[in-house]
C-alpha cells in the first residue's frame, strides 16, 4: 500500500466555531494507483488533499493519521513535514496558473528551490530538461518569466517542477479546469505518463470533471459534505455505483464526457448542509431518496466487495 489514511479528521477553526470539513476519512491507495477524488465544491476534497501536504491554521487535525509507504506523515507539524514535502508528497495546486513567482525566471526559481532542498541544481539540470521534453515544453522556458507562458504551458511547467524530486504521492488539484479541452486531454495524458514512467508512484486527481477521471483514473473516491461516500474502480463508479449520492451524481451527468455544473446538481433537490454545524449521522440523508431512520447514525465506510467501499446503511450490512 502506498498511501493509507486512517480516521483523518480535519476542521477549520473559525471565530464562529469549527467547520467540520473532513470527518473520519479512511481509505488506502495501491502503488501506481491514480485515484480520482470527486464531489461538489465544498465537499472537503481540497481539504483532504491540502491536509496531506500543508496543514496550517485555520486548518487543524482533530484526529487520525496518514501513512505513506508505511511511514507516518507528521502532517500537523509544519516544520517536521518539510522533510516529506516535495520529496515524498508533492502537489500541483489548483492555482497552478499563479504558482510561479512572477518576477523570477523559471529556471532560476527551479534551481533556487532545488538548492534549498539540498539538491545541486547543476546535476539536476539534465533530468529537468528530459522532463521538459516529456511534457513537450521547449527548454527555453527556463529562461522565461511565467507571464510569457500560456496557461497550458504553465500547467505543464508546474507539473515538471512539482515532480522533480520523484515524490511517492502527487496531489493534482483541478489541474485541467483552467484549460481548453484539447490541452486538458494532453495534460491528463502526461499525468498518466508520469505514473507509467514511475516518476511518481501514486496520484490523487481532484476534480469535478468526471470525463477526465473516466479517461485517466484507476479508481474514484466520491465525497459528500466532508464524509467519504464511495470508493471503487472507475468502471464500477460510472456503471454500477451503489451509494445513492453517487447514483444521482452519475445520472445527473448528461452522459460521460460532459461537464457538470460544480455549484449545484440539477438532478438532486436541496443543497449540501453547512459544515459549521452539520446534522448528525449521514450528511446526505436530507436529500437522499432512500433515507430511513438508521441514517441518523453515521454509516461505516465498509468494503462490500473487493476494492469497493460504500458508506450507506442501505448498501452495507448482510442483507444488502
Amino acid at each position, binding site marked *: 500500500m502506498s498511501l493509507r489514511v486512517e480516521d483523518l479528521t480535519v476542521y477549520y477553526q*473559525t*471565530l464562529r466555531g469549527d467547520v467540520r470539513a473532513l470527518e473520519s476519512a479512511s481509505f488506502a491507495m495501491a502503488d501506481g494507483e491514480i485515484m480520482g477524488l470527486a464531489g461538489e465544491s465544498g465537499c472537503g476534497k481540497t481539504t483532504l488533499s491540502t491536509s496531506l501536504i500543508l496543514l496550517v*491554521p*485555520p486548518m487543524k487535525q482533530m484526529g487520525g493519521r496518514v501513512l505513506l509507504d508505511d511511514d507516518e506523515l507528521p502532517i500537523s507539524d509544519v516544520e517536521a513535514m518539510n522533510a516529506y514535502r516535495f520529496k515524498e508528497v508533492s502537489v500541483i495546486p489548483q492555482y497552478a496558473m499563479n504558482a510561479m513567482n512572477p518576477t523570477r525566471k523559471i529556471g532560476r526559481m527551479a534551481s533556487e528551490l532545488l538548492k534549498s532542498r539540498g539538491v545541486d541544481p547543476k546535476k539536476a539540470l539534465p533530468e529537468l530538461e528530459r522532463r521538459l521534453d516529456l511534457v513537450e515544453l521547449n527548454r527555453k522556458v527556463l529562461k522565461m518569466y511565467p507571464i510569457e507562458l500560456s496557461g497550458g504551458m504553465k500547467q505543464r511547467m508546474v507539473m515538471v517542477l512539482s515532480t522533480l524530486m520523484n515524490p511517492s504521492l502527487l496531489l493534482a488539484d483541478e489541474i485541467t479546469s483552467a484549460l481548453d479541452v484539447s490541452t486538458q486531454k494532453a495534460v491528463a495524458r502526461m499525468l498518466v505518463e508520469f505514473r507509467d514512467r514511475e516518476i511518481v508512484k501514486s496520484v490523487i486527481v481532484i476534480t469535478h470533471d468526471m470525463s477526465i477521471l473516466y479517461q485517466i483514473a484507476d479508481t474514484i473516491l466520491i465525497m459528500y459534505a466532508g464524509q467519504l461516500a464511495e470508493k471503487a474502480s472507475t468502471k464500477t463508479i460510472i456503471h454500477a455505483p451503489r451509494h445513492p449520492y453517487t447514483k444521482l451524481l452519475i445520472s445527473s451527468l448528461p452522459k460521460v464526457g460532459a461537464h457538470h455544473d460544480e455549484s449545484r446538481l440539477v438532478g438532486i433537490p436541496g443543497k449540501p448542509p453547512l459544515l459549521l454545524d452539520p446534522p448528525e449521522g449521514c450528511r446526505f440523508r436530507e436529500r437522499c431518496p432512500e433515507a430511513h431512520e438508521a441514517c441518523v447514525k453515521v454509516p461505516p465506510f465498509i468494503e462490500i466487495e473487493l476494492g469497493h467501499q460504500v458508506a450507506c446503511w442501505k448498501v452495507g450490512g448482510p442483507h444488502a
Partner: protein
Amino acid sequence: MTPTTKNAKKKRNEFVYFALRNTKLKVGAVVVITFLIVAMLGTLFTEFEPREYVGPMSEAPSSEYWFGTTFFGQDVFTQFVVGLRATFMVGAIGGGLATLIGMLIGFVAGYRGGAVDESLNVVTNIVLVVPSFAILIIIAAYLEVRGLMMESIFIGLTAWPWTARAIRAQTLSLKSREFVDMARISGMKPMRIIFTEIAPNMMSYLVMAFILQFGGSILIAATLDFIGLGPTTGISLGLMMQNAVNWGALQLGLWWWFIPPGAAIAAIVGALYIMNVGLDEVFNPKLREM
C-alpha cells in the same frame, strides 16, 4: 429579496461581527471620536475668542489657561479647540470631495473602457505626477482672501487621482461579474449599474479611500497653513504652529504653544490610518488573525 441582496445582508452582519472584535478599528475610532467631541464641545469650556488677548503673556498651562497662553497672551486652548474644528472641516470637505471625484472618474473610466478610459487615464496620470502641493501654493499665493472652504475645495480638487486609479481597477474586476452582466442584459442604464450594482459591492473600498483622503487632506491643510497660505481669517492648527515658530516659541521654551496642535494632527491622522488597517482586516478575511 433577490439572492444578491440577501447575500449582501449576511455579509454585512459578518462585517459588523468582525468590526466589533477588531482592536485596531476600535482604538482608532475612539481616538478620532474623542477629538471630534473636543472640537464640537470644547468652546463651551472657554469664554475667550481665539485671537483675543486675554491674559498674561507666555504663561504655562494652569487651571485658568488649560494649555497656557501664547507670546501675546492669547489662550492656547481656545485656539486649539477652534483649530480642531477647522481640521475636521478640511478633512471632511477636502477628503470627501477628493473621494467623490476619484469615484466618478474611476467608475466611468473602468466601466466605459476604450477611449473614455484612455483619456481619463491621461488626465489622472497628469494630476498624479504634478506635485499638487506646488499647484496649491501658486494658487493660494495669488489669492488675497482665502477661506477654509476654498482651501478644502482646492485640496479636494488636487488629491483625487490615486483614488480614481484604485477604483478604476476595482471597477474593471467587478465589471465582468455575473450580476453586472445580468443588469446589463436587462437593459439597465450604465449610471444605474454603477451606482446600484458596482458601488455597493465595493463599499468597503470606498470607505477606506475616504478615510485615507480625510487624513491626507488634514496633513496638506496643516502644511499650507504653516507656510502662511491657509485661510486668511480664523485660526487653524497649522497656523498655530506657524505663529509659534515665527515668534520664537522654541527658543523661549513655550512648548505648550506648539505641542498640542501637532500632536492632535498626528493623533487624528494616525488613528485614521490605524482604523483603515483594522477595516482592511475586517473586509479581507485573509488578513484576519485567527
